């Protein structure tokens, strides 16, 4: 199971549809302060089911929808998709690739899709159960949070170990 690509449109500062293809090794992302690098990390957390606006650095979930700037008006929807290869069928689906999509509209309705079919968040969570992919997993370290694993008290440190069990 490999991560093939991430597609964003209308998500935070990514007003234009943007696609990042991921190679099998290391992908580096660089750029000046405030240009949108950490917004990419937020996009991955969001499409995997993040429900806390605060953990996406916003006050409300609608803060993930492009809010306008300069000549551009705010957009009415944010959409993010993650595409995985599934040749070894680690994900319990027939298809060779699996695409998960999340959308949020200005009226606060949201949609989840698996391979362009409507699904529920519960379906996405179950799909990735036990793969190490998920919102609370140890596989995403946000900016400034690397030492948080050590700062936490000894009981909450257990969570990370249990995640790996």
């Amino acid at each position, binding site marked *: 199971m490999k991560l093939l690509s991430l597609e964003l449109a209308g998500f*935070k500062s990514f007003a*234009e549809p943007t696609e990042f293809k991921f190679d099998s090794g*290391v*992908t580096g*992302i*660089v750029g000046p302060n405030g240009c949108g690098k950490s917004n990419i*990390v937020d996009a991955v957390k969001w499409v995997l089911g993040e429900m806390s606006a605060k953990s996406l650095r916003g006050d409300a979930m609608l803060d993930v929808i492009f809010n306008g700037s300069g000549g551009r008006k705010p957009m009415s929807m944010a959409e993010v998709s993650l595409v995985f290869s599934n040749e070894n069928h680690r994900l319990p689906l027939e298809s060779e690739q699996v695409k998960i999509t999340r959308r949020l509209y200005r009226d606060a309705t949201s949609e989840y899709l698996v391979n362009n079919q409507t699904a529920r968040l519960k379906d996405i969570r179950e799909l990735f159960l036990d793969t190490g992919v998920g919102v609370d997993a*140890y596989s995403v370290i946000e900016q400034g949070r690397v030492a948080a*694993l050590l700062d936490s008290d000894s009981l909450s*440190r257990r969570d990370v170990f249990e995640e790996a069990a």
Partner: protein
Amino acid sequence: SRSRFSETFETVRKEFQEMFRKLFGGGKADAILENPQDILESGIEILARPPGKELQSISLLSGGERALTALALVLAIFRSKPSPFCILDEVDAPLDEANTGRFAAIIKEFLVQSQFILITHNKRMMTVADILYGVTMQEPGVSKKVAVRFDRGAASEAASPAAVA
């Protein structure tokens, strides 16, 4: 279940000891169950002794030593339960050149099982990337992906996307 947790705990512990030694170029670390009689509830204590130093409370570690110890723990968990991808957002910010170099070298050992996405301002880390994306805001407030030319030899200013046409 008890046996599953204690088995995972032992694996992560061993990996953590090894990762710490590799990242620090020496020293010793350990993860200890505070209350071994009660495996399913016990907190986990982290011990870390950088090379040449006495064992002290982890709160006395320096900013860079804490970040590196936390990275050793994350990579240890990764070893015991590989997730398809790992996203690290400027985790190298507190590290000096020697530690950044060791960290960059270690990442390469993980590429067999997982893909890494590294957000960084550090030229040394950029040299590890197989593919490099720049993000800029040519149009104010709107993130745009740009191709980045990376001159490995000089690891020069050219890496900063601003230098890309």
